């Protein structure tokens, strides 16, 4: 692998490290690393890069943080398996279903996982192409009951024609039946047949 370009933003106060990241992103097509020496700069650079659709890898070195930033278009060219995101299919499909079974994405720090889930819903609402249906099951039902921000984004999707099916058994189990903010209560039969009939199911 080629040597990664490194930008030293140590000894710099916010917002300088973010400005440097922004400039570098505008120039670089390939992944690069930015070095910062304080928590605030680390969080800010990470937030900024993620807001630009980049993948971020963080490592703590002695006395500083190293933040690897992989621009969106560079992802597929990297060899790391976690970066090889399948290209969206070319043909338009109108029967895509997103199957959400947890209120967090991936296994790791819960705080990160829930934030990712929130960001995912936000991104869905921003996207031109919307899924046909979204199914919420198990702790996924928390996304439609406990967080106003997420509910707002889901409502926007709903207004544009995306249907939200929420597992009734799960709502009951977590005592959330009265807290539904968006979507409609569904059952296993409907959910099962929706999944079988779907052209594409994206599971989270």
């Amino acid at each position: 692998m080629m040597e990664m370009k490194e930008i030293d933003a140590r000894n710099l106060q916010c917002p300088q490290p973010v400005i440097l990241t922004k400039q570098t992103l505008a120039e670089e097509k390939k992944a690069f690393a930015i070095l910062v020496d304080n928590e605030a700069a680390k969080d800010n650079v990470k937030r900024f890069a993620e807001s630009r659709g980049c993948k971020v890898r963080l490592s703590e070195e002695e006395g500083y943080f190293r933040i690897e930033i992989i621009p969106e278009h560079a992802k597929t060219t990297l060899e790391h398996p976690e970066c090889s995101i399948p290209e969206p299919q070319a043909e338009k499909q109108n029967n895509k279903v997103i199957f959400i079974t947890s209120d967090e994405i991936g296994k790791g720090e819960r705080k990160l996982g829930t934030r990712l889930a929130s960001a995912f819903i936000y991104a869905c609402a921003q996207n031109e192409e919307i899924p046909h249906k979204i199914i919420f099951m198990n702790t996924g039902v928390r996304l439609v009951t406990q967080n106003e921000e997420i509910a707002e984004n889901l409502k926007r999707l709903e207004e544009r024609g995306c249907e939200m099916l929420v597992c009734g058994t799960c709502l009951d189990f977590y005592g959330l039946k009265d807290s539904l903010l968006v979507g409609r209560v569904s059952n296993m039969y409907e959910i099962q047949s929706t999944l079988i009939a779907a052209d594409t199911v994206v599971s989270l």
Partner: protein
Amino acid sequence: MGPCDLEKILSRVTSHTSERVLSSLQSGEDAGVFALDDKNTLVQSVDFFPPIVDDPYTFGQIAAANALSDIYAMNGTPLTAMNILGAPCTLDLEIISLILRGGEEKIREARADIIGGHTIEDDELKYGLCITGTLDRKNMWQVKGALPEDILILTKPVGTGILSTALKAQFISEDGMEDAIVSMRSLNSYAAEILSSHRVHACTDVTGFGLIGHLKNICVASNVSAAIRAKEVPLFGKTHEMASLGMIPAGQKRNKEYVLEIVKIEDRVDELLAECLFDPQTSGGLLASVHPDDAKNVLDELKRGPCPHAALIGSIEESEETKISIDVR
């Protein structure tokens, strides 16, 4: 300077004061209070900082509104002001005079007078003022005095730290933060006037330590806990968006550390919204702990009048040890 460092420094400064000093350095009071005699009480404060907006006149206005705020937060009336200015010798004199004129305009609006000042040569431009006023001791507001079941009222939105960071990074223009600029240069006197006709048990103004940092001062001094409804806390328009782009100022981390031990943020609170609650503010609003029966009226009067974005953001609770809990609502 961050709140933790300041606390450390002040704890090493022995504050030997006479009985006539009615406020102490350690209590986190907004201004110094000194009894002149049985009747008359002096209240004083000083604040200065580097420019947070590009326009010099606006900067002057904001600096003055910010300096006056400490007096209003104690229900005082400003009388006189002294300018403090540090500027590089290369700086255009026109800019300096614009800053001072902006400051003067606000001091006049406050019906006070500028009676002097001091300037020094400095690598970085800084401006602020020292304000002297009086207050009625019986109606003085302090950080101590908040009672369980009180309602917390915030008179201005938060987000000036994030927005001025974004301005510095050229992520937004001054137009993009117009709402924050209007807010920063507006005096807290009008809100204080409304509050003063109701039962205010404690009050402070929200500045450098962020909303939760200043709330901590109230809670610790009053020996109570507080519950904040994060969704009710008003933010300036682009605050959340700029926070998501990494525009959170370094001081925010220090503010968070200052309250870390006593704060609990529920998982369901939007993470970025929670971050905004620690954002250091310039010329922020008043945070008042008000008798529950008066809160609704105060809010109505504020919203109809000088503070359209005022909000009831939480309540005071009884507890053995001071805690601040932050939930969605």
